[in-house]
């Protein structure tokens, strides 16, 4: 019988028996302290090899043999094995409290995790070395992988002291080591994700309030300069090029994530030649036919659109300055809108808010589905019965109201004191009311106020003068008031028909 035929006849029980006999051999024949020493020594040597790997085989930033890249590209596949297996380990350990056999499995899974870690590091190294990636992101990811592998090895060593605990001081090492390994895993995996999907992948569609918190907390950027480069060129490069030509990956030795790096160029020379767009490598690459081998952005990423290319060309033609605010031949419309300042959360006041509407005949309506856009006070259904006292009732909602529509209501000058407390107000409608402007100066406290309509009231020039100091007040309407009397506008005559024929 050939050996493989014998193998076929083997049953799981036989395999278990073989492993058991091997284990018995080791535990019985090899002296215990010698065994421990051997295992620790092996781990130490392996760790040393791993730690020295980046120096032994340097990542030089040049592409190497094709087979390395071919194998290397399996890294993204293999890399998910250690992730899944390592996450399983603590779950199994915890579940072991209830089902002891699961804890036994944890040891086996940990072994598998170690093997997959080694494989992932090996393939990852082939990928980086083969494709010539040597950016800071790749380096961070590499070190993460190496440290993780070492941490898993230590976990494996420390585990028996935890599962067969004899002395209390030895028991805690394994859980802590496992936690460290998991943290290393998270960090390393995130670095890897940032390499493939780009740094902003996670935060791009994050809800605004969360984003604000995160960006303030973690990634506060230096203030942007008001130049054409900062406002228009850098964002194009950032969105289309920097995932391969940035801090994380430096393909072709070229980085495009800052002005200095862009001007420095890559291993093929300068990317930008100021004043000569046609000779600039950057322009050449993005204007090749999309199926050309050297076309950028590579790897099927969407090409730049005509407008973006035109901006880059014009900017280079104009001298590729980092400070110039305009570029001849490019007129970019910029919205003059101020960003809306979100109002605080008022969801707790909802029941009261509805009651109030019923009582006053005035409504507080949401500006939009987005509650933080604030509320509008709408009095159009019962203007005559809405006066200063009614307005004062809404003081409780003051910080949430962004617009008050008080046109043709019975409010008077006394309402200005109340309105001054509506800190988030952007617009006030007072047209056709009895206000005369006494106390208007109180509104200067409202820093976000952008619109005040006093048309058809008796306000005078002197009364509105204090409002001129308000920086954000762009829309002040005084039509048909003593401050700005309605002037007769006489339209031009429209020409008469030249022939007096009737329609056929």
């Amino acid at each position, binding site marked *: 019988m050939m050996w493989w035929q014998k193998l076929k006849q083997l049953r799981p029980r036989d395999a278990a028996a073989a492993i058991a006999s091997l284990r018995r051999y080791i535990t019985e024949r090899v002296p215990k302290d010698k065994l421990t020493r051997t295992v620790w020594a092996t781990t130490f040597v392996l760790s040393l090899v791993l730690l020295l790997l980046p120096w032994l085989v340097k990542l030089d930033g040049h592409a190497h043999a094709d087979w390395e890249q071919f194998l290397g590209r399996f890294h993204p596949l293999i890399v998910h094995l250690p992730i899944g297996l390592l996450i399983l380990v603590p779950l199994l350990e915890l579940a072991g409290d209830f089902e002891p056999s699961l804890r036994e499995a944890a040891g086996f899974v940990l072994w598998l995790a170690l093997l997959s870690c080694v494989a992932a590091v090996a393939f990852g190294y082939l990928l980086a070395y083969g494709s010539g990636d040597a950016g800071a992101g790749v380096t961070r990811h590499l070190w993460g992988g190496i440290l993780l592998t070492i941490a898993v090895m230590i976990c494996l060593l420390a585990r028996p002291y935890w599962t067969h605990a004899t002395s209390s001081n030895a028991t805690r090492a394994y859980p802590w080591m496992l936690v460290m390994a998991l943290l290393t895993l998270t960090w390393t995996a995130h670095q890897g994700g940032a390499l493939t999907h780009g740094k902003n992948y996670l935060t791009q569609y994050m809800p605004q309030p969360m984003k604000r918190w995160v960006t303030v907390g973690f990634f506060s950027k230096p203030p942007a300069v008001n130049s054409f480069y900062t406002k228009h060129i850098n964002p194009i490069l950032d969105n289309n090029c920097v995932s391969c030509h940035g801090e994380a990956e430096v393909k072709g030795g070229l980085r495009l994530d800052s002005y200095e790096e862009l001007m420095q160029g890559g291993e093929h020379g300068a990317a930008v030649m100021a004043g000569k767009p046609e000779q600039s490598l950057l322009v050449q690459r993005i204007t090749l036919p999309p199926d050309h081998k050297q076309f950028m952005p590579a790897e099927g990423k969407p090409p730049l659109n005509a407008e973006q290319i035109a901006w880059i060309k014009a900017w280079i033609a104009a001298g590729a300055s980092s400070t110039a605010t305009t570029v001849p031949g490019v007129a970019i*419309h910029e*919205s*003059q*809108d101020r960003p*809306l300042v979100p109002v605080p959360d008022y969801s707790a006041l909802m029941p009261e808010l509805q009651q109030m509407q019923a009582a006053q005949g005035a409504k507080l*309506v*949401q*500006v*939009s*589905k*987005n509650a933080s*856009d604030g509320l509008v006070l*709408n009095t*159009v*259904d019962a203007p005559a019965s809405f006066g200063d006292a009614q307005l004062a009732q809404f003081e409780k909602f003051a910080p949430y109201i962004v617009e008050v*529509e008080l*046109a043709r209501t019975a409010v008077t000058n006394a309402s200005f004191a109340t309105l001054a407390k509506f800190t988030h107000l952007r617009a006030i*409608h007072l*047209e056709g009311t009895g206000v005369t402007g006494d106390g208007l100066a109180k509104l200067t406290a409202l820093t976000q106020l952008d*619109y005040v*309509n006093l*048309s058809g009231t008796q306000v005078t020039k002197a009364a509105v003068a204090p409002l001129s100091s308000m920086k954000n007040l762009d*829309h002040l*309407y005084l*039509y*048909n008031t003593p401050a700005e009397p*309605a*002037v*007769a*506008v*006489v*339209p*031009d*005559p*429209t*020409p*008469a*028909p*030249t*022939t*007096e*024929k*009737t*329609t*056929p």
Partner: protein
Amino acid sequence: MKQHPLCTDTERALNVMGLPVPAELKREWAALQTRRHFLGRSGKVLGLAAMASLLGTEALRGDASGASTYAAEGPLKMPYFAPKAKRAIYLFMSGGPPQIDLWDYKPGLAKLYNQDIPDSVRGAQQLTGMTAGQAHFPIAPSHWAFKQYGESGTWVSDLLPNTGRMADDLTIIKSTNTDAINHEPAIMLMNTGNMNAGKPCLGAWLSYGLGSMNDNLPTFMVLQTKLNDKENNQPVSSRLWSSGFLSSEYAGVGLRSSGDLVLYLSDPDGVDRNVRRKMLDAVNAINHETYEELGDPETNSRISQYEMAFRMQTSVPELADLSKEPQSTWDIYGPDAKEPGTFAYNCLMARRMAERNVRFVQVYKRGWDVHGNVTGTLPLLCRETDRACYALVTDLKQRGLLDDTLVIWGGEFGRTVYSQGGLTPENYGRDHHPRCFTTWMAGGGMRAGTTYGETDEYSYNVVKDPVTVRDFNATILHAMGIDHNKLTYKSQGLDQKLTGPVPASVVTGLLA
């Protein structure tokens, strides 16, 4: 014998409303019951049919078609995002104003007078029955000169001297284009996003999606301009302000162009307001019972419409009372504005409605269908509209309303560069032209003082930045705070929307 829950005999059947079944099924059941009731009592069918026709077409359609009688999901009743425009006024120039004579300045055409338009330009363009028989398509340059206006240097025809003066407030779209070449499909497409009748119009979508800002006036009002019999008036019908498959409470409420603004709105002699109130309360109670029994949402629409009519008995006279308008109003709108039913009067009313927070006002001006005698008719049309358009935008602006009111001007298509019928140095005609026409918007988040899109030297094809009817409507919805892809209503198995199933996009080049 065990009763089947869907037994038509409701007296003995299990009440399905009490069963633990999904609410959607219950609504379906209520809708089914409506139909069964209607058909079941076949003995009285004639009487019922007569009654249904008295009640109006909605009642008939709601029962007989059995199509969607409830919304797949309720409307938001507020914008999806902070809007630039809270309300809109749509000046609809029915008939198709000739872009070449008003906006689309083509000085080069003068040299080509009476030459045939090259076939390469016309391509395989479909012709209307009115010019299909013509052997020649002679180029008719505009009879009028153009001037540049404002800081933007916009070229505007001498026919529109006042509109030209406000060029810096306008966003002019020269590249609007449509798929339809005849009035009815084109005007339906412009208003409802579909050439076939039965879809809700822009105003109905707006009132469905955004809700009302004024409880005493309809959310969507329509003003028609009195006819001028010297003009070629194409008919407009209430299909254009219909709510389609949406509940009829979202349909536009038309004001009459002469006589009472709303028929039968004033109480007859001997009926005072208290009597009217009592009568309405009784009718409402009966209608509530009907709704409880049949669950037809149209019954609720009916109740809310009766209530709206009651409130309009006081709000409409106040709306139409122009006695408190200052002299400056008459100075700018002109003496025509004092006469109900004129375009100038309608523009003034539109401003008054905007002040009262009516969400959407549509003013129809007919007569732009200038197939012949352009030099005779066009000045009449421009005299009626030019000053009033200027007055409306300027008045809204000086009163601080233009910031959050969107004004839209446009027709259903443009007109041909070639003459329909004979071309003489004095006169010419222009046929329907769907491939390009000019529209404008003002206020409400639009980029003032810009011209968007370009046509070729013949004002025949769009050569830059085309704006389809879908894009046009998507942009209007955007200005009002609505994502046109999200405002949908399930009907006939489709999530229907104003911009239709073909992809549409908001024209960001028009936005401030």
